């Protein structure tokens, strides 16, 4: 056996090992986060009732730019669409619709002003309210921010919708530019006060980063990481909703 054959075999074996390892990583749930980051004790009772009664689940995502992805096909890969896909897959006999209502540069206060309209049309049973980034960037008074979130949640609950609050993205590069801590705390406190689940995007993305799942420091124009993150957010958000609404759901075997 010549030296080159030996090298060739070694390369082949190495490639094989790498492929199986890669395949395994694919099979294991790459979005997984520890339960304590995702699940709380607040319930989504209206979601539960709507699913039990009408087999429908109408969701609105109210958010800012970080609920979207740029580009012509951005909407299809952003987490609202991914959430719809994940929920439809896991709740096969429920008609799931997710409408994204996203506008750039909106403070929590401005978003809360829009809530009454949204409650009339499209009249969701669940509102996922993503907020905080613009306020942190703009430097809104944290106390005013908290009051605005509390006001919005109150309106939603009074208007007959369940709420899931979503906080900011984990963005390591801008950490020394935007102080988000006070705003994340504000969302947490409102959630606790009003007994509303929080999708702690900040902690969850940080967990993915630390677990090596996504390189969030990378400077890249490539959409790959962004799409991966949004897909995972959609799936984990689906898991949170299913858990908090006590829904009977199929296991999440990669909906592809």
């Amino acid at each position, binding site marked *: 056996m010549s030296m080159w054959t030996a090298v060739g075999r070694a390369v082949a074996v190495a490639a094989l090992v790498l492929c199986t390892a890669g395949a395994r990583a694919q099979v294991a749930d790459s979005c997984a986060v520890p339960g*304590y980051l995702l699940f709380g004790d607040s319930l989504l009772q209206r979601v539960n009732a709507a699913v039990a009664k009408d087999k429908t689940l109408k969701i609105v995502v109210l958010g800012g730019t970080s609920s979207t*992805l740029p580009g012509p096909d951005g909407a299809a890969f952003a987490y609202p669409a991914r959430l719809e896909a994940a929920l439809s897959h896991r709740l096969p006999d429920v008609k799931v619709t997710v409408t994204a209502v996203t506008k750039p540069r909106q403070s929590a206060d401005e978003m809360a002003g829009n809530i009454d309209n949204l409650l009339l049309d499209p009249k969701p049973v669940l509102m996922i309210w993503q907020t905080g980034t613009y306020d942190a960037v703009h*430097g809104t008074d*944290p106390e005013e921010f908290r009051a605005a979130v509390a006001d919005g949640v109150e309106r939603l609950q009074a208007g007959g919708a369940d709420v899931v609050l979503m906080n900011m993205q984990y963005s390591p590069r801008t950490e020394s530019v935007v102080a988000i801590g006070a705003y994340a705390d504000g969302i947490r406190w409102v959630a606790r006060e009003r007994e509303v689940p929080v999708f702690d995007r900040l902690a969850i993305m940080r967990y993915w980063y630390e677990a090596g799942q996504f390189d*969030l*420091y990378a400077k890249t124009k490539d959409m790959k990481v*962004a799409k991966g993150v949004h897909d995972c957010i959609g799936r984990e958000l689906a898991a949170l909703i299913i858990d908090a609404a006590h829904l009977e759901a199929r296991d999440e075997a990669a909906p592809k």
Partner: protein
Amino acid sequence: MDSFVQAPTASGAAVQGTTGQDSAAERPAPAPATASSAGAAPAGRDLRLDLFRGLALWLIFLDHVPNNIVAWFTIRNYGFSDATEIFIFISGYTAAFVYGRAMISRGFVVAGARILKRAWQIYVAHIFLFAIYIAEISYVASSFENPLYVEEMNALDFLKQPEITIIQALLLKFKPVNMDVLPLYIVLLLLFPLVLWLLIRNASIALAASVALYVMTWEFGWNIPSYPSGHWYFNPFAWQLLFVFGAWCALGGAGRLAAALRSPVTMWLAIGYLAFGFAVTLTWHFPRLAVFVPHWLSEWMYPIDKTNLDVLRFVHFLALAALTVRFVPRDWPALQLKWLQPAIICGQHSLEIFCLGVFLAFAAHFVMVEYYGGLHIQVLLSLAGIVIMIGVAHLISWYKRVEGRGSGSSKKPPDADLAGGEA
């Protein structure tokens, strides 16, 4: 506790690096600082102040490095208050200690002028840090285009209008992340001549006025506006309470509290409150535990407002301070130990080391952005930062010692560097 208010004398100055100010330290102690335990061991400077301010500076640095695993060791994760409270209290204490003596011996105008000079130094330091901050941020902005973070990148818009940003920064209204403490400090010092004057005339009225301002701030929502919107992160009208309380302690208040501090009731109340604070903070880190916080309690307790120095935070600091004073006596032998000297020496040059810490936190973030931000890098950068802080503190000590010798025994005005570091 009465020893807490003694004046330092040169004979007892156990720590290197103070020789430059010995001429000032040899002056007789002023009236409010009369040593009540006279005749005991020679009174040195209170190294506890240096030690805890040095530790606070390290903790502030660790907390300022974004996404830093080492920051889990810092006290903000185990109770309501954090290193900022320690820093501001000790700063108030030393400011009163240093400038109080000046005001008694040289009068209001001279002492007031020195305090304002100090405020000016801090202002210059703040602007210097701002320049470094802008350099780092501009770099981060120019090299970053990630479709995931379109919204976060809006935060860099201020770079597009340098004329406004720089003017707002000079007015202390633009507030870069992690640079909120120095503007607070500047405002506190600007008002300090009057506060100190009142403290010396009638300490109780001064403290009462401080509490009244604090209460009214909460009542009426006073704060200083900032640019582009919002208010100062550390509301000076609220945080002055801690600074004035520190000053009040330095000018004899600590002696008045001595009996209360010795009482076991105080000790157990403090321990109980710290345990309560620890239990509550646990529920922040483990949301599942939040069910154990009764609804009425969270309704009453939250939000715990750092901007306006929440009472819960203030009391938490008091509890920590009470236990510290009880279990770390002024003549605690460990204060002379070699391995505590690095913290002490950092505490003795607090302005320089604080600024250095802010800079090092930026630098650490830069390294994490440019190269890698993994766990071992975080630990490495944290350790390196503290080592650099210690090294620079030694360098400053050495420089001041050399300078002090050079100027002989000429009467230099006592700057704020004696008595537990700068004011």
